[in-house]
């Protein structure tokens, strides 16, 4: 690690101003992505703006027909929240499958989404439920938020404060973990909200999280695993590494999508 100064603002406004004023400043949430890269000296921010003492950034509440999750809410809080388990059990289940207990007690939804790791789980749910990301500046719909590998619509001094998830009729997430890291080698999130059907894949895409419109169309006729029997996604466009070739990932997308639809239906 390189030496750095840690700041602990009390409000979002203070955090934002530190972020603009200090050179080479970075937000610190759970630190489960940022700190390992700092330890390896792959990142060396001069200033860390720690969000842990900022008020109002954590917690889960129902607002109308949406569940609003604070950016600093940890994975374990989402996993065990009674209201989450009641309204969107697929999202609670997804949070419970992230990493290991240490990761789930420190890692946050805001950090995960801002990082947009192509193998992370949350992006699948955010896009799969058509959520809205709320920042200190604006509201960004999920469809506009994820911009490829580790890239998002966030500006340099923008802070995620909340994520708003609409309630859906049906949803499920099926994850095939990378055996070593436990991130998603492939994860498929499906949801059905009245006429809107989403099938979203994380882990597999060469360019990050994506929707499978061919599957969505097929499911519009009937929301059941049979409707997408035999359907696949093309291998080109899939990521390929030592853990899974593009062909294997493409194959898993089909298998997991059918299992997710079966679980949701």
């Amino acid at each position, binding site marked *: 690690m390189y030496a750095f100064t840690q700041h602990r603002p009390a409000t979002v406004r203070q955090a934002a101003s530190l972020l603009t004023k200090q050179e080479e400043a970075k937000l610190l949430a759970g630190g489960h992505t940022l700190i390992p890269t700092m330890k390896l*000296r792959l990142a060396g921010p001069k200033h860390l703006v720690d969000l842990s003492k900022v008020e109002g950034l954590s917690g889960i509440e129902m607002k109308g027909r949406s569940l609003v999750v604070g950016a600093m809410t940890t994975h374990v809080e989402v996993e065990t929240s009674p209201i989450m388990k009641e309204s969107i059990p697929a999202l609670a289940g997804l949070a419970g499958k992230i990493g290991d207990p240490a990761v789930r007690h420190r890692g946050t939804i805001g950090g995960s989404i801002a990082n947009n790791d192509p193998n992370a789980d949350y992006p699948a749910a955010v896009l799969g439920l058509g959520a809205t990301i709320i920042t200190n500046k604006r509201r960004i719909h999920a469809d506009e938020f994820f911009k490829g590998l580790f890239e998002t619509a966030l500006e340099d001094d923008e802070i995620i404060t909340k994520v708003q998830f609409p309630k859906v009729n049906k949803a499920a997430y099926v994850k*095939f973990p990378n*055996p*070593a*890291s436990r991130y998603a080698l492939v994860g498929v999130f499906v949801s059905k909200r009245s006429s809107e059907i989403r099938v979203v894949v994380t882990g597999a895409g060469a360019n990050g999280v994506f929707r499978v419109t061919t599957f969505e169309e097929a499911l519009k006729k009937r929301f059941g695993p049979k409707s997408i029997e035999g359907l696949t996604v093309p291998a080109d466009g899939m990521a390929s590494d030592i*853990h899974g070739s593009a062909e*294997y990932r493409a194959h*898993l997308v089909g298998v997991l999508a059918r299992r997710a639809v079966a679980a949701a239906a």
Partner: protein
Amino acid sequence: MSATGIGAAVRRKEDQRFVTGKGHYTDDVSRPGQCHAYFLRSPHAHAKIKNIDSEAAAAMPGVLAVLTGADLAADKIGNLICGWMITSKDGSQMKMAPHPAIAHGKANYVGDPVAVVVAETLPQAKDAAEKVKVDYDLLPALCDPAKAQDQGAPQIHEVAPRNTIYQWHLGDAKAVEAAFKTARHVTKLDFINNRLVPNAIEPRAAIGEYDAGSESLTLWNTTQNPHVARLVMSAFVGLAPEHKLRVIAPDVGGGFGSKIFIYPEEVVCLWAARKIGRPIKWVAERSEAFLTDAHGRDHVTHAEMAFDPDGKVTGLRVKTVANLGAYMSTFSSSVPTYLYGTLLSGQYEIPAIYCEVDAVYTNTVPVDAYRGAGRPEATFVVERLIEVGGRQMGVDPADLRQKNFIKTFPHQTPVIMIYDAGDYHASLKKALELADYAGLAKRKRESVRHDKLRGIGFSTYIEACGIAPSQAVGSLGCGVGLWESAEVRVNPTGTVEVLTGCHQHGQGHETTFAQVVSERLGIPLENVSVVHGDTDKVQFGMGTYGSRSGAVGISAIVKALDKIEAKAKKVAAHMLEAAEGDIVFEDGKFTVAGTDKSAAWGEVALNAYIAHKFAGQELEPGLKEGAFYDPTNFTFPAGCHICEVEVDPQTGESEIVAWTAVDDFGTVVNPMIVEGQVHGGIAQGVGQALLEGAIYDKDGQLVTGSLMDYCMPRAQDLPALKVEMTKTAAPSNPLGIKGCGEAGAIAAPVAVINAITDAIGTEDLPMPATPQAVWRALQKANDRRTAA
């Protein structure tokens, strides 16, 4: 059996301190004035070092020294060595290339140290290392052992043309040829025994300190054999004479073989400590451990087994290329030869065996012994061939094994070993019952009903443990003897310290060794402490590896206890005014036979020291005895492991649903500890079979350089294990102990692969059998079927 004696499942004495954070590891040691070393390592697999400019680095804050291979050479520090001489078929000796502790002139793998920065703090050392400018001239890298001997392959060391270290062979080629000519059936297989990263939980660490007053060096080090480390660093590296070099191995958090070897960093810490006059600490980071701890396995093998019409094995032919990495590590040469070829007879009566092994250099970190060392590789060859042979001939794999079992002992195999005791039928029979082999067909049908494929795999393995005797290993090229030493020191109050040349790093010696003493002397377990891991306390010893501490180390203690008892009887005879021959020692009490005159253990101990009753030199005061023990043979643990898996054909995932292990370890001192060793061994073996595989890319970068990419087994990867034992005592040592530390890791990998291939109905499956690998194997089999 006493409540804490041999055979009692007493809790481990050392665990209280470990689980409460009171262990004392190398990194817990801090010396006055200590500074820190950071190694700058080659980012290239193969590169000429044209120039190293350390001027800017040396001027950084806190920096005490920046040292390079040139400095090491100028100070005439010797190279690291491999201590086991292997002779090639043509009579030539193995080609050992120079291995300087800091690369000089050329870097040969990613992670090869090219400079060391010593600074007041570790961050200062790291900051300065970023300022060291190394001018490299890149050379093509060679990582694939199968291509190492190709014409035009990059040449790594001048001494070894075609990167070939030796071309060794064992057995009778002609007899094997004849057997294959008349064979009814021949099974042929090609496979890779995958390369593994040891990953002990405690990374390697070293502290070097020089005392100018006594002109002596002290090294605190994560080593499995402090005396061997001292010997090599004195006699070969030339750091200091043995009496001026002390090596201390405090608590060590796992080794699995990787901490047997003498590594560059400990040499550099000692050398630099004397140079700058300050104690120097170095602790590996996990990424450093991945890059620089000696890896394990990495064999490329072609093997063939010949069967006669009755299904009897008539011949075995094996050709292996073994990757030893960029330099020859301390015992690397012995692993793919005398620890491998000599076990190729398995549990079977095989009349003719011929094995050829070519060892090669590559631009990868050195490869050396790792839990099992050679024997998992041998077991894989034999147990894969017999399993596939059975399937091809339509014979039940259990029946085929039984038909070929060795039934009478001693048995001379065609590959050196004389098996002295065993009952292979007993362990197989027990395992078949425990695994409910009879109910397998029904379970297979049930699996099909929920879209899964079920398979079963056997491994009736054998291994050679207690690595010794000295005469035998010496005749095979080993540079040291493999006896063990012990000293039993009885205090005047009757408590006992046992000094052993073995070293514990997870095995529980402080408990098991004490159990042997407690039973023999009739004293409570807590009155015995075990001392090890310090060359200033224990005179000499060979350390712990090769499952040798029970069979060899405990035997030395037993021998010392014999002497203690003899001496104590003399003391008791004096006290009780009886003839020495009339003294009987039982349950901690000395009695004069046929009388009620007796003396307790504590009274005898006290009298040995106050010596009031001994006149002059008639009886020497004191009660302390030492012994060196050299066994008459290796020991041969053996057993049967049965693995049952369920495979999801859609994703390729394999789940181990049942595991049965029936092992014959001879006499067992502490069944709980032994069971733990079996559990750990199986977990590591399952890791090799399903999860672990070190991958270097074509440029020599370690792609699996962290736990995010290199998968270690987790608790959830294993079912509840059924572990049972059978017993035939080892005739080669006084207690009949065989050794258990490696058995699981030896038996397990092939059991898993046999099980998965049974489930998926195709034999072409690599290790690790990841979901992707299984899926691909199924795809390939499907394609073949549709093509046919």
